[in-house]
């Protein structure tokens, strides 16, 4: 097991380097001058320009800049923005909010999604099954930004149940509606995945055995069928957490949440490469660790998978 984890961690290194380099190169290629508008109407004085460019390694070729950046990163230094702000400080603030949002979304998916999937799966072909199938299809086919705007208008503006816009230090309740919106698409997938797996496993030989053992129907389904059916769902949910963090950008924009997505978007627009790369690197690392966690969990849930 330890061996497996070490191997996986080693495998992560090239992926982290590859993806950050890709992002770095794209950010480097961003058109526009970071100094534009820095000194008011006039062009900046040459001495300032020189110092600014040297501070941010702007005159080095791309690979050298990248290596310098990685060196800093290895020491836990995420660098400073062009405004001179520490990227790590800002990221901590932003991530706290986005992680909260993603946790709400994940809980929503896990509880409602799995429940709907189970109900549909054990009553395959019946009314509740069709209801779940149709409503998940509707959710899947409507883009998140439309769902988000509608939810904001209906539950925020018209009914006044939720705040319309989000304070800069939002609490759990402020993030509830945005979290539900963020989780809606994955919820639909989780429900469908649960349903398919459950319906398939209900036909498995070992379920027939469980019936032949004289077990009650709740036990046959709840203990013998559900466990196997939920293994893929758990892995889907785990892997989805990273996706939620990255995909939160739309929800954050609709509800005016000052999270990571907005930070990246804003930094791209202000040509602030350090901030963009730092934020994305963090996302990549979270994504990879979640995947590792999911794979380890898989081995725990399914004894047939061995990590030796």
């Amino acid at each position: 097991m330890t061996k497996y984890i070490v191997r996986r961690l080693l495998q992560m290194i090239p992926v982290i380097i590859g993806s950050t380099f890709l992002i770095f190169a794209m950010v480097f290629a961003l058109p526009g001058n970071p100094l534009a508008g820095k000194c008011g109407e006039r062009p900046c004085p040459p001495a300032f320009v020189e110092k600014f460019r040297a501070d941010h390694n702007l005159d080095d070729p791309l690979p050298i800049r990248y290596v310098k950046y990685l060196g800093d990163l290895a020491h836990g230094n995420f660098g400073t923005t062009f405004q001179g702000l520490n990227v790590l400080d800002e990221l901590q603030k932003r991530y706290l909010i986005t992680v909260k949002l993603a946790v709400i979304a994940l809980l929503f998916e896990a509880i409602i999604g799995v429940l709907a999937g189970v109900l549909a799966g054990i009553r395959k072909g019946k009314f509740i099954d069709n209801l779940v199938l149709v409503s998940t299809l509707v959710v899947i086919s409507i883009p998140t930004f439309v769902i988000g705007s509608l939810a904001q208008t209906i539950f925020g503006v018209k009914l006044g149940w939720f705040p319309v816009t989000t304070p800069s230090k939002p609490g759990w309740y402020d993030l509830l509606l945005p979290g539900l919106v963020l989780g809606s698409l994955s919820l639909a997938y989780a429900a469908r995945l649960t349903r398919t797996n459950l319906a398939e496993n209900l036909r498995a030989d070992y379920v027939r055995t469980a019936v032949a053992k004289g077990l009650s129907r709740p036990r046959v389904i709840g203990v013998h069928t559900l466990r196997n059916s939920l293994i893929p769902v758990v892995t889907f949910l785990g892997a989805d957490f990273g996706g939620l963090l990255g995909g939160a950008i739309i929800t954050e924009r609709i509800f005016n949440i000052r999270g990571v997505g907005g930070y990246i978007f804003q930094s791209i627009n202000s040509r602030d490469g350090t901030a963009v790369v730092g934020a994305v690197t963090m996302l990549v690392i979270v994504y990879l660790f979640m995947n590792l966690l999911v794979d380890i969990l898989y081995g725990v849930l399914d004894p047939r998978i061995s990590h030796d």
Partner: protein
Amino acid sequence: MTDQTGIIVAEGAVAQEADNVGQAQSLTQEAWRELRRNPLFIISLILIAIFLVMAVFPGLFTNTDPAKATLKLSATPPSADQWFGRDLQGYDVYARTIYGARASIVVGVMATLCTSLLGVIIGTLAAFYGGILDTLVMRLTDVFFAIPFLLGGILFMSTFPNTVNSGYWSVVSKVVLALSILGWPSIARLMRGAVLQVKPNDYVQAARALGASPWRIVRSHILPNAMAPVMVVSMINLGAFIAAEASLSFLGIGLVSPAISWGVAISDSLSLIRTAPWILIFPSIFLSLAVLAFIMLGDAVRDAFDPKGR
């Protein structure tokens, strides 16, 4: 001795192949029968056909010029003259919704073709040759998977931004390129898995033993048997790409006005959601129907080819 075993292997494999072909045919026929009876399949096919015609010949559906703004009629609600009403600039919403199909469908179809082509080629090569190439491809897909889809799209579109002078096709192809670059790894993974499953089969081994060229093995033995999952996922992806294009438009970096597209129309109208909901509703319904049609088609085809589902 080697010759003899070769022949024996080949004979056995020929019989096996005949068996496989027979099975594959009956499975295809069965699936096709199943599909023709599935109302969802029929409905999605009809919807897709309508949208395709709409994309190619929008003039068949409306005589109104989508680019003719009548500011005087700004935000008039739907009526007999203007079925879907008019938007803030006084454009006819119906005409713009019809003409908007083109951008979404083109983006969806082109992005699907590009991702499938790239993914199938790379995935097949990786699985067929294995070794260092396979490892490289797998790590490369890991890299792409690690970058969040939407953020990658935003970054790409910002690196090659649109200007006021960018032509329609240059904007569209940029969106297609962004979606393709980010979308190929999942298809490549899928294809790799499918080829790895097909590769050890006796009929492939027999073709090898008989000295068939790698190209021939891939073309006539591996591809036909490994394409099914990619085709299903591609259909579903087509819908997802249409939605992704709209999301990029919402963030202001996909298609932009004056290009006419559902995504642009929806994001422009979100601020008017309470005062003039019809500007939002009609393009949204069209977009969702298009996405739905491709997802349902993919689902139906997968169910039909999956014997476990019956």
